[in-house]
């Protein structure tokens, strides 16, 4: 089962639409790393909203994709990990260490835009707000 990869400006969006075998996951990894070069992409989104199981192999493959795309100059963000998956991954002791995640596609795109546009990074109202948010809640228990 091939995962469709959509090119959206400087970003690639891979939407996993059904359960994937280990071979499918490896194919997705190969294809994304290739396409980052082919389309000179700056960012990759892997949408796992439709995925029902993220076991150790799937988790490791997602980490590999992010790291390999990183070596090719693209940021990766995993989106759509639903609550049952998050719960199970924690119980199993899995982590996506070093890999960005976002709630859904919209948040993922916003994250990539923020990270890959130098001008936006400096003047972004989001970044300013984020920086000022920390101390406000401090001291409130």
């Amino acid at each position: 089962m091939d995962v469709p990869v959509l090119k959206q400006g400087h970003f690639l969006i891979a939407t996993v639409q059904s359960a994937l075998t280990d071979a499918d996951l490896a194919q997705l990894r190969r294809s994304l790393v290739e396409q980052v070069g082919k389309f000179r992409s700056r960012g990759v989104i892997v949408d796992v909203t439709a995925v029902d199981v993220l076991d150790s192999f799937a988790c490791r493959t997602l980490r590999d994709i992010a790291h390999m795309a990183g070596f090719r100059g693209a940021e990766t963000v995993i989106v759509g990990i639903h609550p049952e998956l998050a719960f199970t991954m924690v119980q199993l002791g899995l982590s996506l260490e070093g890999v960005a995640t976002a709630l859904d596609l919209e948040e993922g795109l916003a994250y990539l835009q923020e990270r890959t546009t130098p001008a936006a990074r400096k003047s972004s109202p989001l970044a300013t707000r984020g920086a000022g948010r920390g101390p406000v809640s401090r001291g409130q228990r």
Partner: protein
Amino acid sequence: MASAERIRIRTDRDILLARQRGREMGQTAGFVATDLTLIATAISELARNIVLYAREGMLEIHLVAEDARCGLLIVARDHGPGIADLTRAMQDGFSTSGGLGLGLPGVKRLMDSFEIDSYPGLGTTVRIAKWRRS
């Protein structure tokens, strides 16, 4: 309604099939969504261990109702090389295959019960169970 399924595990497709059957039987047993994901993930890990380390084996899923409780009993059996050091295999972070590990401590945390028998040269049997929360 079948109360037991036997799935031969040889390829990565069999891993998918096994966890889909587990999910279906879990639904029949009335498990909530979170538990169905836990069960499917545990099956995925055990089935992958069979493919990776023993090449082939058998996974059985039993729908069990005893006393006042209902749940799934899952048995993963292979005649592979076995595990030389079970104590180490049950430690978090222990791995024999480049960072993947057997995932056995994780599987144990996902389920209500976990038993393993392994004899070097003869094979490994893992029995896990999950009971429906009432």
